[in-house]
């Protein structure tokens, strides 16, 4: 008998034994899921302005930088953020809108770069799939404009453009929107990486980008 058979049989036998002792539970097809109470709040009645304000507050709370732009001035905001840190050579994913890229900087498509090559960049610019206001989270997937996961991981600086229509209030709302692309590699990012392992002192940026900045494009 394979380990697979052993385990499955053991689960079935032990569940049956428990049932004999305690009475049967609801079956799977018999509306089992309806018995899972989902009384928790799935949405929040916030105005767009409140939602944006909350998102910004939570981003800053987790030490991410925030800048504002309108959909037509993204390139200017990008230039501003990069210039403030004197960054010039920036990795970009395939499919990133060309109009986001200001002149005077070196933007190089880097989807195919290996980690060593990625490390030579001073930063990375990406879009995102969506953002969650209540947790200050951006969600990235392996998709055009966002690139493979290593792209937003290896360079030390991550600049991400978020449109206000991409922001949802709650985590449950995010999962409704993500359902269609659930099987793409997905990363939830909430502030730069952090540790409190040494004497409970919070240090920002252990392995991921040490700096995370968000450009909020408000229509």
């Amino acid at each position, binding site marked *: 008998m394979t*380990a697979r058979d052993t*385990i*499955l049989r*053991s*689960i*079935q036998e*032990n*569940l049956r034994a*428990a049932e004999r*002792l*305690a009475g049967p*539970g*609801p079956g*799977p097809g018999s509306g*089992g*899921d309806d*018995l*899972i*109470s*989902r*009384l*928790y*709040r799935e949405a929040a009645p916030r105005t767009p302005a409140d939602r944006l304000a909350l998102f910004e507050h*939570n981003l800053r709370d987790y030490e991410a930088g925030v800048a504002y732009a309108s959909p037509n001035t993204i390139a200017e905001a990008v230039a501003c953020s990069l210039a403030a840190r004197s960054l010039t050579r920036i990795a970009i994913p395939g499919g990133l809108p060309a109009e986001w890229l200001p002149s005077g900087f070196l933007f190089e498509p880097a989807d195919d770069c290996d*980690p060593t090559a990625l490390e030579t960049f001073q930063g990375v610019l990406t879009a995102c799939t969506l953002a*969650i206001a*209540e*947790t200050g*989270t951006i969600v990235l997937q392996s998709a055009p404009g966002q690139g*493979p*996961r*290593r792209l937003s*991981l290896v360079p030390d600086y991550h600049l991400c453009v978020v449109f206000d229509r991409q922001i949802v209030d709650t*985590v449950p709302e995010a*999962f409704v929107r*993500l*359902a269609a692309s*659930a*099987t*793409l*590699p*997905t*990363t*939830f*990012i*909430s502030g730069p*990486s*952090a*540790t*409190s*392992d*040494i*004497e*409970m*002192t919070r*240090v920002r*940026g*252990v*392995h*991921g980008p040490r700096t995370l900045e968000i450009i909020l494009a408000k229509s």
Partner: protein
Amino acid sequence: MTEPRSADFPHAAREVLQDSQLRRNVAHATDVIRNKRDRVVAECSSWQDLRDAGSAIRQHVLRHLDQYLLQFESACTQAGGQVHWAADAADANRILLDLLVRHNAREIVKIKSMTTEEIGLNRSLAAHGIAAVETDLAELIIQLGRDQPSHIVVPALHKNRRQIRDLFQREMHLDSLGDTAEDLTAAARQYLRQKFFSASVAVSGANFLIAETGSVVIVESEGNGRMCLTLPRVLVSIAGIEKVIPRYRDLDVFLQTLPRSATGERMNPYNSIWTGVHSGDGPQEFHVILLDNGRSRILRDPEAQQTLKCIRCGACQNVCPVYRQTGGHAYRSVYAGPIGAILTPQLHRLQEGASLPYASSLCGACYEVCPVKIDIPEVLIHLRGQVVRKQQATLTGKLGAWNLGMQLAAQIFVSGDRLALAETLGRLGQRPFVRSSGFIERLPFMFSGWTRFRDLAPLPAESFREWWAKRSTTP
């Protein structure tokens, strides 16, 4: 937990309680995390509803565990993953070793996980000349110092900055190194980067497996997880069979409750969700090892089964008055604190950890905070009953002082007359032990444990029942 654990909890606790520095650090760490947790939980208006939903989902999974595992296997396989089944720790280690030998790996990178500790993976690999590099900062500190973790969320809290500086400088061969938390973190970043870039295989645990999509979920803070999950060519995730959840959307519950409960954050810095292999992004070979190792047997007990709902957040440890005094070392088990006190003895069929169900005051704080509503006090009492019945089954247990004493107590408490008689005898018997302070400072034999750290008030000259009887006859 493959090595024998000789010391039981009371003995081990006595040892660690001598270390006042460790006790201070544990108390501080648990306070900090607790306060953060309370703050972000208070922000969450439907916290109790989330606990109900989390509990219901996990309970539902356990009732249909075989079906959800099969569903996960088929979805993961379809997405290009390879699913293996391991009945016990030896099985899991062998499967992993075979994979590593096939890939000729001498060194692997690893994300901390309770499951890999449970099966003693590092030791098993070392025995075959393969080094497993821990990549969580605290685990790295522990590993380089050949040390033991002292807390689940902050395992290296017993080390101060200067000790870590000396350790890093020596083990990483650095000429000079500052001793701020920033300096030390930067040194670890540099040291591990080379490992991440060169390793061909990574090993991880899993926070959740999603049956519907075949996806695996890892929740982390430092980014070492993302490095391990995306850079090496081969990834092996080892997960307990109870880790599966039915659907993708069920994650919305746990991604609200787990980060808040574990580290007191609205969301931890990084969550990774991936499904099989994805061309051009991440490992091109992906294995999942589904580990039983005593779990399926726990399903047999309708009362204790709920133990398997656990999502390993550690919240019960931070509120436990016993854990806050002793820290993790005293449990002599991979799983410490209230969850360890119920999980460890069950995984080992009470062969190990039989003293752990007693390492609790039954105050109920663990149940209050548990995001999946495991009634830990109920399970503790249930397991104490099992421990006692097991002892009673042996002759020495049956004739032991505890059993006889308890049997006697049971005989006394059935009638008021017997109780009154026992009280009279007790008042006579205690006389030689009552000191001039009016307290009993030392008791003999099996009672000595009670007076080792505290004095005992003697039985009063008049019992409540006697007083009551007198009072109700006087008009």
